[in-house]
């Protein structure tokens, strides 16, 4: 069965610097996979390669078995690959209602619909409501996004990605900067994501990683350092050493 998402010898070089060093990686269908690594390990570059924002120097990317290396970002989204951003990338002047509505109607061929007012199609409204409830945004649907609490904005980040009905969801440090009080709400919604969605979680927050993921890959200096189940990786002394910055005899 083809992997939900797969890369073969993926390399990305910025002039002399190798940001992604020959990464071969598989995300199984329905997996809950975490990608951890110290700052500057190349996690965000890796995501930008997967989503097509950056073009790889060499290597291939496969989405559900289909070669997506040359695909434009928006076509990858149509093929079921969605992402959230480490730093919120939302629409300040819009409301959560419109933001989610945008993603949902875009997916349902909304782009070609220039005559009917947004929200006139019953099935779009229902889906917006379902997503709003899932991500506990019903109480702030009509507020300007820029006025929302930061935690709510992080939830909206994930809600919009989810609204694209992805088969593969890339979560880029969803809990980053979320105050303690709103953190458990965020963890609950991430845990509650349906199993038919394979999730790749990029995160520093170890208790989120260990509570959520069933497999973990560790990225160091752009390369996969090690990979394994939660137990294997959490007990591996070398991982702890990498985090504490001792040199690793490669």
């Amino acid at each position, binding site marked *: 069965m083809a992997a939900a998402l797969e890369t073969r010898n993926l390399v990305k070089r910025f002039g002399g610097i190798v940001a992604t060093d020959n990464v071969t990686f598989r995300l199984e269908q329905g997996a809950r996979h975490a990608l951890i690594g110290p700052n500057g390990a190349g996690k965000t570059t890796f995501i930008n390669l997967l*989503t097509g*924002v950056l073009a790889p120097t060499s290597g291939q990317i496969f989405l559900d078995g289909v070669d997506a290396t040359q695909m*434009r*970002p*928006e076509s990858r*989204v*149509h093929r079921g690959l*969605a*992402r959230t*951003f480490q730093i919120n*990338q*939302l*629409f*300040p*002047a*819009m*409301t959560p*209602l*419109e933001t989610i*509505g*945008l*993603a949902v*109607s*875009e*997916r349902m061929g*909304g*782009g*070609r*619909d*220039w*005559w*009917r*007012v*947004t*929200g*006139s199609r019953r099935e779009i*409204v*229902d889906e*917006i*409501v*379902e997503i*709003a*409830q*899932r991500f506990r945004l*019903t109480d702030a*649907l*009509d507020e*300007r996004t820029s006025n929302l609490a930061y935690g709510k904005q992080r939830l909206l980040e994930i809600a*919009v*990605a989810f*609204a*694209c009905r992805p088969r593969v969801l890339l979560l880029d440090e969803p809990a980053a900067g979320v105050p303690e009080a709103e953190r458990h709400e965020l963890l609950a*919604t991430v845990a*509650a994501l*349906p*199993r038919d969605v394979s999730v790749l979680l990029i995160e520093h927050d170890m208790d989120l990683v260990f509570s959520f993921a069933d497999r973990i890959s560790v990225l160091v200096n752009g390369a996969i350092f090690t990979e394994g189940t939660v137990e294997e990786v959490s007990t591996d002394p070398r991982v702890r050493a990498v985090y504490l910055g001792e040199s690793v005899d490669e």
Partner: protein
Amino acid sequence: MPADPIAKTAVPPSTADFVRRSLVRKGRWGVAEIGFWAVAAATLFLLPERHLILNEIAIIGLFALSLDLILGYAGIVSLGHAAFFGFGAYMAGILAKHGFADPLLGLVVSALAAALLGFVTSFLVLRGTDLTKLMVTLGVALVLGEIANQASWVTGGADGLQGISMGPVLGLFEFDIFGTTAYAYSLTVTFLLFIVARRIVVSPFGLSLRSIRDNPLRARAVGIPVNRRLVAVYTLAAAYAGVAGALLAQTTQFVSLDVLAFHRSADIMLVLVIGGAGYLYGGLLGAIGFKVLQDILSAWTPQYWQFWIGLILVVLVLVGRERLTDKAKALRPRSRGRLAGQAKVLPTTTAGEV
């Protein structure tokens, strides 16, 4: 698979209704809007001797509306939008001169011609910073102006297009010198195209334009083909501007190089600055304000009214158009369930980001 605690609880009707109502409400016409168009229609009967200037207001309003579509909604800046206005005007004029005197045929042909020109030049506008967009659009308008000047065998060159005679509108209403038919014709065309524009901006397509304007990176991440949408709206706006140009050519039965002049692109920017961009009425209100201002100023100091126009532009920019329309927003009473998606005036990347 562990039970999904949140998923399928019954969808409470209240939330669904609230979502549908607040989305659909944007589509319904507000009292003020209906009032505005009622006043506009009333002027057909109440101000018979001012139909000439009202005709110009309607045309400039439509032209400003077309710029608002790309600037206010898609965030594309342009200093050469007169290229499409002038192209439409010449197309309609040449058509009428060579015997195709039916006005509506002229409008359709000008719209298509301008749309084609818009489509072809839209690829120039997709790349680069705002500064590059300003320069490229200016360059296109200048090239078109030069072509019109050189091709005097078809455009009449510096003397302008002579010998345009228009047939009656719908075969019934002859163009009279009092400008009544002309104004009614321009107002109706502007109104119809406004309705179409209004539908578009509240449709999913329109929503995607605003998302591109506010955050192109996220728009792409949600699956929106950004370049294709920008090309589409740029072509549409070009068609609108072409129709506005055709209206001018048909109602004044004269076209000169002035329709492609730099000041037309600059004036229309001023109209949007006065009226505010991003809520469609900015173009129409700005056109009224601009023309009334011009009428008063040119009566007051005939040669030097451009001085005051320049002064207004400088003051408006210094005071900050956002603060200006924020004040207007503050005036608006808190209506039930705040209106979503406020007008964001002339939103562009700040110089720092360039």
